[in-house]
């Protein structure tokens, strides 16, 4: 039984927008992002409200780029890292549209794109918005301690990206198109070190990529770019090595958003960027621009997520990973 979902009416990504904090703006992709804020508050008095504001800004900017108004979209798919998807729920309020809150940890953006494109492909909706966000301060409060605690981070940890990325999907559009989707399977290899997410998530990415290449009978070299969300330095090398032993050479055209968004040498981010805002912002800015300019024409985007919770960590449970894959092409199949 095949697990790939081919979209016969492939929806088009008609616009994208990204909103980031200071550290991301200071990084290598700084000027590719649409909006940034120097103190990461976005004018709000709590980090959770800041995250909602980032999502609102991302969706509104994306709508403006597509010359649409909020009333033109039919549904919003949104997610973030916080309990009860607080940022997304409050951020969606202003749009007065049907809202699906989703959670896939750092894979949420790909999950949102997958679910949204399947719904559009099946004809339930014609236009929708997909947005995800993460914020360094709210993530620290959520998963570790509030930043007021002043806790120190070990060298293998990644830094949660402060950012929101949004795209508008439409059934009428000239591309790039989401042609097929491979939903991820949760994979748990017994890693319980919360400071080494890359190693926990890499097996899920390996599982998804291998299933995809096998079912489509393709190999990594058939694509212009293979992108993961936030495997970081450790996860990146694990993925390349293990896929290499299975006969898939990913060394030439594979990159990771977590390694692209920061300068790991100069910005003191240890193992790279993470969080669902990481893949959302990088995809909605740099990658989408390259697709629209036809510098990239055939892209595999697989955001990975670590499905643990603060309680599961405290209870000593290991960390399962998941990787949802989206295939984007500049022409419909």
């Amino acid at each position: 039984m095949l697990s790939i979902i081919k979209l016969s009416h492939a929806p088009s990504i008609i616009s994208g927008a990204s909103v980031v904090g200071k550290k991301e703006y200071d990084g290598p992709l700084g000027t590719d992002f649409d909006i940034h804020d120097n103190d990461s508050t976005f004018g709000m008095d709590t980090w959770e409200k800041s995250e909602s504001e980032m999502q609102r800004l991302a969706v509104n900017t994306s709508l403006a780029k597509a010359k649409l108004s909020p009333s033109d979209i039919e549904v919003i798919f949104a997610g973030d890292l916080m309990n009860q998807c607080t940022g997304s729920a409050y951020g969606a309020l202003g749009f007065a549209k049907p809202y699906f809150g989703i959670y896939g940890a750092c894979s949420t953006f790909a999950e949102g794109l997958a679910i949204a494109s399947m719904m559009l492909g099946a004809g339930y909706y014609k236009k929708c918005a997909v947005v995800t966000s993460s914020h360094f301060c709210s993530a620290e409060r959520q998963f570790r301690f509030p930043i007021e605690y002043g806790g120190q981070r070990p060298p293998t940890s990644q830094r949660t990206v402060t950012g929101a990325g949004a795209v508008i999907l439409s059934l009428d559009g000239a591309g790039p198109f989401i042609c097929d989707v491979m939903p991820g399977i949760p994979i748990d290899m017994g890693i319980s070190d919360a400071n080494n997410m890359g190693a926990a998530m890499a097996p899920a990415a390996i599982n998804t990529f291998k299933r995809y290449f096998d079912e489509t009978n393709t190999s990594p070299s058939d694509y212009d770019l293979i992108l993961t969300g936030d495997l970081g330095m450790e996860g990146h090398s694990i993925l390349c090595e293990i896929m290499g032993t299975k006969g898939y050479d990913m060394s030439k055209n594979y990159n990771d958003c977590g390694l692209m968004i920061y300068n790991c040498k100069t910005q003191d981010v240890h193992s790279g960027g993470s969080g669902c805002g990481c893949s959302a912002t990088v995809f909605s800015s740099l990658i989408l621009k390259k697709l629209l300019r036809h510098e990239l024409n055939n892209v595999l985007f697989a955001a990975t997520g670590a499905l643990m919770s603060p309680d599961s960590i405290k209870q000593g449970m290991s960390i399962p990973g998941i990787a949802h894959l989206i295939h984007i092409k500049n022409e419909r199949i």
Partner: protein
Amino acid sequence: MKLIRAFIIGGALCVIAQIFIDKTRLTPARILVAYVTMGVILGGAGVYGYLVDFAGCGATLPLTGFGYSLSQGVKKAVDESGLIGALTGGLTATAGGIAAAISFGYIFSIIFKSKPKR
């Protein structure tokens, strides 16, 4: 002089903790708890007192010093009030420090706004 010894010993305790953070998978919370516990054990055994005499604040300021205070407080309270001292002694001895942490933490959180590191 004592100032330099305090600096060296206090710094050394921090370096040891940093090595744990960099080289092991111990979380900062576990390291801090281990430090308090070591302070209690070494204080109870009578060993930590020598470090305090040698280095003053360099030994009492780090979290091992907090464990040391707990142990000395318990010793004193058990001598004075019997077994109940095992429960009352630690908090009595560290009451000042705990109240200071709470009060100053609260005051500073009202005065200052937190933000992420640059």
